[in-house]
């Protein structure tokens, strides 16, 4: 019971905590491993298992919402089992990989199904000017999401490593697949909202330019941005010239009527 509570608390404070404290890497295996080690009384096992798992998961990082595994939950449980079963790496490694993948799927499930629907609640609160509500929901959703997530290590520790493996296989694959698909489709809604703000029929073709550059040329976003900036600068220069020309045209009649004789020299200025 004590171990279950400790492991759940560590997952809540590190994996959840890093979402609250600016993705400061608290939820990495190299941090979680020694932390669990200290709390369960075997820091050396925590260090070595944490280091091995960091080596495995070092390539895995959450970029733009896409990832291959969630290393935090996996590390916490693998280290805890390694210490409580006194078997070290031999028990930790075979558990860590499937747990990392399952952890990510449960994280996605909470992200899509629990927090996701509140996006529109935030909008309606903003349109009502309800600042207190926004702040409460902003932190409340964090607490709810990571409390639910921490229940997994709690029960996994309570029931042991064998039961954990059995339970992992019981989640219907089709639900997991569907939610993964939804997680990949939902950014479309966010893109649509941005388009609603930026769309103007004079410049809407540029949306398709950005799409086709990435779809066919696979350029990274930085390169796309440079191309976009070059185009925007060219167009801004042309607009600036038009703007100056319009100003001159608007200013000219007044000048001409008062100063008719000098119109020849003004024409020269214009063409220079």
């Amino acid at each position, binding site marked *: 019971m004590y171990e279950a509570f400790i492991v759940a608390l560590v997952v809540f404070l590190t994996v959840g905590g890093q979402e609250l404290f600016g993705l400061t*890497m608290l939820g990495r295996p190299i941090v979680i491993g020694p932390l669990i080690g200290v709390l369960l009384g075997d820091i050396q096992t925590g*260090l070595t298992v944490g280091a091995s798992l960091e080596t495995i998961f070092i390539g895995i990082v959450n970029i733009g919402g896409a990832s291959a595994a969630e290393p935090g939950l996996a590390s916490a449980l693998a280290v805890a089992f390694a210490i409580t079963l006194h078997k070290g790496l031999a028990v930790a490694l075979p558990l860590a990989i499937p747990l990392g993948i399952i952890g990510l799927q449960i994280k996605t499930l909470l992200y899509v199904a629990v927090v996701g629907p509140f996006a529109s609640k935030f909008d309606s609160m903003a349109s*009502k000017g309800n600042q207190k509500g926004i702040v409460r929901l902003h932190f409340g959703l964090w607490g709810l999401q990571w409390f639910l997530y921490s229940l997994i290590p709690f029960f996994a520790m309570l029931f042991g490593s064998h039961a954990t493996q059995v339970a992992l296989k019981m989640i219907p694959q089709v639900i997991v697949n569907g939610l993964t698909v939804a997680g990949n*489709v*939902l950014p479309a809604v966010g893109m649509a909202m941005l388009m609603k703000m930026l769309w103007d029929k004079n410049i809407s073709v540029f949306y398709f330019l950005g799409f086709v550059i990435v779809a066919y040329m696979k350029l990274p*976003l930085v390169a796309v941005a440079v191309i976009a900036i070059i185009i925007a600068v060219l167009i*801004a220069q042309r607009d600036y010239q038009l703007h100056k020309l319009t100003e001159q045209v608007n200013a000219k009649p007044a000048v001409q009527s008062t100063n008719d004789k000098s119109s020849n020299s003004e024409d020269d200025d214009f063409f220079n």
Partner: protein
Amino acid sequence: MSKITKKLSSDEKKLIRQMYWRSFTLYSAVTPAKQGASGFEYSMLPAINRFYKNAEDKRKAMVRQMSYFNTNIAMVPFVMGIAASMEKKRSENKDFNEDSINAVKTSLMGPLAGIGDSLTWGVLRVLAGSIAISLAQGGNILAPIIYLLIFNIPVQLVRWYGGQLGYTLGSTLISDLYEKGLINIMTKAASIVGLVMVGAMTSSMVKFNLAWNLVVKGKTILKSQALLNQIFIGLLPLLITLLCFYLLKNKNVSINWLIIGAIVISIILALIGVV
């Protein structure tokens, strides 16, 4: 660095400090549809309350700042600084084009995410990890602390000065453009960059692949996704995004229904084996 903050009033410095601390929570209520929108809003609230006196203006600014936002965490205060300086301009001048604020935000977040992610996740984190792993294998219990310090000290420096830099840059550059009457040209240019980036993000972030294949006598004779790719790569993600845009803009469908619809349809499609 004192040069950057020289022109700022102590009040503005306080706003930027608040933005720095609040921006830590950018992703605490992250949603698939709008990513860090609520965190951006939370960080902008002190600025909104400071600049706008009238409840209606405050409300409009809150709606504006609750838009899709996603970038690398190190770059966030910089974007917030620019956004805050533009909100200030807007509060002082009714003719200031409010759409330019989101146009600038949107055109910045993609490229900054690209630069920030490769530097912080790609370089800094791997560097910190490799040092800490070797320390931990040698039994050094300081390994996790050294890991966190190597990663976070540079990131926090960028975050701290980024906010000040963004705010000063935003207020000098943008007021300059404004006085010359060039803000509309800048808005159009920023919107072009924004639209290109939204198009690029649609292609890189919205994913939808068909798994359905026509199989006759154990032979796959038609792979639907490969066929679609021959016509146009990313056709379905593009059509899905345009459909969402159409429903949102022309049919006034609420984002709530779009989100629920996307989840339900995805599960049904997975159930019948289309995706």
